[in-house]
């Protein structure tokens, strides 16, 4: 008899199934995904261009080709100027705030969807995992494109300032590690940009997703954006 039948425990879904659902969601919501991803792209492009520009300047200062520098020894000693550090930190902040904002919006407008999935039997952890996967992929793709755009911007500016000399002294690899964390070299910088974009996107979306997943479905579905 059905009465008194104990209620079983909900099962975990295989990872592949989550991956499939999250990709499908990104694909169908392509237009919206592009806008969210563009937020990440812009943030990282700004950061990478400022930073690369700085590295180029530093590399050329060291080689004595910079037009802006008069005392090469002094520049090499100082490494990176306070103004440049300030600019990099500012671009980092813009990047963090921009990405967090676009991810927050992207998740908040889907509260109803989260509530509905919970009505159909989704576990809280599954909902969070779905958003983690989606945002991780968006973050990585957006950041990679952003890093390349930023690099291109910095190269164009470098060419304008230093001409073809730029390519002889191009700081692909870390120049002088003793100068601190701001001399990464362009390759590492791109990698850093991608990882940063991905981490920020994941953090930016997993917090609101986790909050929504914890809400009773009725409340999640009631939430108006």
């Amino acid at each position, binding site marked *: 008899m059905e009465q008194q039948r104990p209620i079983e425990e909900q*099962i975990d*879904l295989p990872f592949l199934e989550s991956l499939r659902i999250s990709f499908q969601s990104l694909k*169908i919501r392509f237009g919206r995904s592009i806008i969210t991803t563009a937020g990440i792209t812009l943030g990282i492009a700004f950061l990478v261009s400022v930073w690369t520009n700085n590295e180029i300047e530093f590399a050329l200062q060291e080689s004595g080709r910079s037009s802006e520098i008069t005392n090469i020894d002094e520049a090499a000693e100082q490494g990176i100027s306070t103004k440049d550090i300030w600019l990099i930190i500012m671009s980092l902040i813009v990047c963090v705030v921009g990405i967090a904002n676009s991810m927050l919006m992207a998740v908040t407008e889907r509260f109803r969807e989260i509530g*509905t999935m919970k009505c159909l*039997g989704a576990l809280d952890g599954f909902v969070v995992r779905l958003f983690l996967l989606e945002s991780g992929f968006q973050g990585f793709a957006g950041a990679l494109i952003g890093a390349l755009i930023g690099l291109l911007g910095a190269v164009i500016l470098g060419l304008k300032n230093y001409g073809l000399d730029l390519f002889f002294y191009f700081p692909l690899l870390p120049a002088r590690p003793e100068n601190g964390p701001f001399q990464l070299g362009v390759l590492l910088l791109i990698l850093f940009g991608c990882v940063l974009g991905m981490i920020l996107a994941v953090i930016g979306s997993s917090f609101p997703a986790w909050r929504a997943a914890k809400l009773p479905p009725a409340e999640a*579905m009631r939430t108006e954006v």
Partner: protein
Amino acid sequence: MPDIVVKTEDVVKEYRMGSNVLRALDGINIEIQRGEYISLMGPSGSGKSTLFNMIGALDRPTEGEVYIDGQNMSHLSQRQIAAFRCHRVGYIFQSYNLLNVRTAHGNVTLPMIFAGIPEKQRNEKAEKLLDKVGLGDRMYHLPDELSGGQRQRVAIARALANDPSIILADEPTANLDTITGREIIDLIKQLNTEQGVTVISATHDLKMLDVSDRIVDIRDGLVERIRNRDEIEIEVGEVGGHE
């Protein structure tokens, strides 16, 4: 002995809005038998949707207990509540609540994905269910490409995906025109009679009256009265006369 599927004991629900406390449910006691078609009726703000949420484990009561199949819902773990929503209940909402990124077919398969049903089996079942609700030819359309009535049919097919013993319908006809609303009511009634599914519906649609076994009138968060089918039929005649 009657087979009680849902029982509520002094269920109270309060919402806090700043310093104000709104008491949406003020001590509800009802018992619903297996296979019944129950309509929760009442004006907007009477608490019927709140009660609907309590019975469907979509929200937690502030006080009191809800028993489903003899089990106290407040004693269940998160995993058990998820399994309960997945297997025991099918939800139908006023605003359909379909996932817009999934086709009609994709919406119907989703609860079966959560239940761990293999792909081939769930695809076949989704096709069968969509056929049954009359959407055999629009299976792979996105919700945005369907009319209101068609979307509600998808929602009904989705609600049936894991063969629930209870269908919970919150104002299922409120966004539909009279004829489409009638069709949806008939479809839900058909499930009730043919498959013995218990139907609990929050509504203020008078068309729901003549298919209900019992009507629970809710007012100001309390059960005002419970009417049986024979009492209802007389009143439906009267209502029809005024229209």
